[in-house]
C-alpha cells in the first residue's frame, strides 16, 4: 500500500482505514502484534488484518464487523489528525483541476498545515512530479514529513520549515503551480511568481475572507498575473430516503365523510426522494486562480 499506488492485501506498516459504517471510520497503522479497540470489540492486527484483502469484512472480538479500506487521499482527509483547519475534497478537487495538476507537475504549497491537500497533490503528481511544501510551524512541518514517509510518498516531497512571506518556497523557476493557504497571501505573490517556470504556470490562493481576496487580487494584478478569477464551490449532499405522504380525503359525491372505505381515510403515497440536509457548510473559502503568462 501507498498513497500513490494501490495494493490488494493489507501488509504490516500500512495505514488502513477501519470503516464502522455511516461515515464513522478511523485510520489504523497496521503493526504485527498490534491491537485496536473499536466499539465492536478489539481488532487484532496479525490475525484480523495482515494478509486480508482490502475491502473485506473483518469481525471484531465482540462479534460486530467492520470493513477495512485501502487509504486514499480523500479517506485520509476525513480521518487525519487535525493540527489546523483543513481543506476538504470539494475544494481540493477544484484546486487540482484548476491548477492543471497531473503526473509530473512540480507544485509549491504553503502552508502545509495538516497535509490534507498535500496528500491529494502528491497522489496526482506522482510518480514523476514533486511537491515543495512550506510550513512556518516547526512541529507541524516535522509531523507532516513523518506522515509523508509513513504513507510512502516521502520521495515526492520536500518540506521546508520557513515563512513563505519572507523567505519564499526555496526554489525558483521550477513550479507549474503554486498554492497559497496563508493569512496574508498577498505578501507571498512575489515569491509565487519567482517559483513558477519561465514558460508560465498557475497559482491559487485560498482565503476565507473577502478582504484577503481583494488584497490578493490587487497583488496578482501588480505582479502581472492574468486570467484572475475568484470562485466559491460548495458541496450539497443529499439524503436518499423514502417519504410517505398522506392523501387528503375529498369526501364522497353526496358530501358524506370520505367514501366510507377505511382505506380512503388514511391513504398515503410513498416515494423515494433526495432530501437536502437541514444544515450544510455554507462557506469554506474563496478560491482565487490566476495564470502567470509567458514573459
Amino acid at each position, binding site marked *: 500500500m501507498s498513497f500513490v499506488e494501490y495494493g490488494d492485501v493489507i501488509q504490516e506498516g500500512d495505514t488502513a482505514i477501519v470503516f464502522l*459504517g455511516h461515515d464513522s471510520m478511523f485510520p489504523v497503522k497496521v503493526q504485527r502484534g498490534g491491537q485496536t479497540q473499536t466499539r465492536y470489540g478489539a481488532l487484532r492486527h496479525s490475525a484480523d488484518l495482515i494478509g486480508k484483502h482490502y475491502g473485506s469484512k473483518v469481525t471484531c472480538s465482540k462479534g460486530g464487523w467492520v470493513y477495512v479500506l485501502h487509504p*486514499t487521499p480523500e479517506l485520509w482527509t476525513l480521518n487525519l489528525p487535525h493540527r489546523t483547519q483543513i481543506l476538504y475534497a470539494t475544494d481540493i478537487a477544484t484546486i487540482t*483541476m484548476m491548477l492543471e495538476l497531473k503526473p509530473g507537475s512540480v507544485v509549491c504549497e504553503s502552508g502545509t498545515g495538516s497535509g490534507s491537500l498535500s496528500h491529494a497533490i502528491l497522489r496526482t503528481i506522482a510518480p514523476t512530479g514533486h511537491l515543495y511544501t512550506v510550513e512556518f510551524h516547526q512541529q507541524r512541518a516535522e509531523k507532516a514529513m513523518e506522515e509523508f514517509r509513513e504513507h510512502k510518498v516521502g520521495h515526492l516531497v520536500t518540506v521546508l520549515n520557513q515563512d513563505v512571506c519572507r523567505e519564499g518556497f526555496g526554489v525558483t523557476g521550477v513550479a507549474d503551480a503554486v498554492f497559497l493557504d496563508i493569512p496574508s497571501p498577498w505578501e507571498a505573490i512575489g515569491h509565487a511568481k519567482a517559483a513558477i517556470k519561465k514558460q508560465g504556470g498557475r497559482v491559487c490562493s485560498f482565503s476565507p475572507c473577502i478582504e484577503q481576496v481583494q488584497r490578493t487580487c490587487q497583488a496578482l494584478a501588480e505582479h502581472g498575473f492574468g486570467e484572475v478569477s475568484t470562485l466559491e464551490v460548495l458541496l450539497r449532499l443529499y439524503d436518499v430516503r423514502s417519504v410517505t405522504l398522506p392523501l387528503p380525503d375529498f369526501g364522497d359525491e353526496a358530501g358524506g365523510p370520505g367514501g366510507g372505505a377505511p382505506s380512503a381515510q388514511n391513504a398515503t403515497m410513498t416515494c423515494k426522494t433526495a432530501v437536502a440536509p437541514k444544515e450544510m457548510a455554507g462557506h469554506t473559502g474563496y478560491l482565487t486562480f490566476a495564470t502567470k503568462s509567458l514573459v
Partner: protein
Amino acid sequence: MEENGEAVNAQWTIKEGDHVVLKREDVFKAVQVQKKRKIIFEKQWFFLDNAIGELYGTNFEVASGGTLQPRKVKHEENPQETKEAGMDNRNIVDDGRSQKLTRDDIETLKEQGLKGKEIVQQLIENSTTFRDKTEFAQEKYIKKKKKKYESDITVLKPSTRILALMYHGREPGKICHLRYDTLAQMLTLGNIHAGSKVIVFDTCAGLVLGAVMERMGGYGSVIQMYPGGGPVRAATDSFGFPAHFYQTLHEFPLAKVNALLAGALSLESEEKSGLEDSSTGARELPQKTVSEAVEREAEHSSPDVEAIVVTSEGPEDKSKAERENQRELRVQEKKIKLEEKRKRLLAAASLLEGRNADGLIIASRFHPCPVVLSLLKFVAPSRPFVIYCQYKEPLIECYTKLREQGGAISLRLSETWLRHYQILPNRTHPKLLMSGGGGYLLSGTTVVMDTAKSLGPQRVEEPAPKRQKLEEANV
C-alpha cells in the same frame, strides 16, 4: 526532471499538427495547427501558420490577410489620457445619439487598417457622454468596446481545465451538461492517478476519458466502454496526448459485457461478426464509426498497417492488373485491421476479466442503473467509483439498488454549487449570473460482496426510511 534547455523548449513550442486551444477573453476553441488552413473564431478568420515555432501562451494579433502577429509584451495602458469623469449618471440619457460615429464610419476606419485599440480610442473621442460617465462606467465602456474591436488571440496548450470550460461554454449538450467543477469532483472522488487501472464510460465526446488519461499521465491502463459501433474520442483527441498515452488506452463494447461476465466471450464468433459488420453495410453510421476507430487505432498502435495504407494511397495506375492488386491490398488491409481489432478486444477483455479494476467512472446519457450494476463487477474491492448523471432521479434509483445489492459503501449523492465573484476595490460582489446546476454525482467505495448475504446483527447502514409523521403534514 533533468531536461536540457532544448527539450524544455520543444515541449513549449507550437508545432504543426499540435492540438491547441485558441482563447479570446473567456471564449475557447480547440483546433489542430495546420498550415494554410483557415480558422474561423469569434467572427474572425485567420491562419495559424505564424504561430508555428512560437511558445505556448503567446498572444497574437490578427493582422490583415488573416496572418497572426505575435505580441510579445502585453501592455495594458489605458487609451484615454484625460481623467475626466462624472459623479453619477443623472445627466446620461439613453437616446442612442451619444456616439457620433456611424457603423459605416467604423467600417471605413477598419478598412483603413486601424488597429482595434485605435478604433476604441476613436469611439471614446466621438462619444458625447463618455466624459460624463463615472470612472467605473468609463472602465466598463472601454472593456466592452475592447472586446468588440480588439482581436487578441492566445494559443494555449490544451488541458482538462481548458477543454472542460470550453465544452461547458460552447457545447454543453455534447457533454451531458457536465460542469467543469463536477468533472473535477469526479477525478478526485475517483482517486484517478498514475499507475491504476480505470474503467471509463462516457458519452461526453470523450472529455471525461481525456481528463482521466491526463491524470494518469500515460501510466497504468484505461478501459473505455462504448455503446454502439465504436468509441467516441473527439474531445479526447483535442487533448493532444503523446502517442504512448494511447498505448495505455483500451476499448470494450458494452454489447459484449454480458458475454464477458458469463465467460462466454468467444474469439471466433467475434471474427465472424466483425466480417459480417463490414460486409452487410446495413447500419451505415455505426459502421463508419467502426472503420474510423479502427483506422485511428491502426495509426496509434501498428506502424506496418500504416505503411500499407500509405502504399495503397499511392498514385493510381489505371491498368487492370494494378487495380486487381489494389483490391487485394485492400482486402489484406481489411483483414489486418480486423485482426488488429480482435487483438485489441482480447487485450481489453483480459484487463477486465481479472475483475480487479482500480476505479470506475461513468458519465453518460444512458440510465446509470444497469451500467453501474454491470460494470461494478469488474472493480476490485476497496476502490472508489463515481457516477455522473444530469438528473437526480436515476441516481436515487442507483443508490437504492446498490444498497439492496450490497458490495458498496459510503454511498453519497451530491451536487456542487459554483459561484464566481467580481473582485474590484469597493465593488466586490458575486457575478450577476451563475450556473443553475452542474449535474449530480453518486460516489462510493466497493467492498467484498457478502456471499452469505446476511445483513449481520449490526446496523443496516441506511437509517430505516423515516416516515414523515402524518401529524407533521397536517400542521
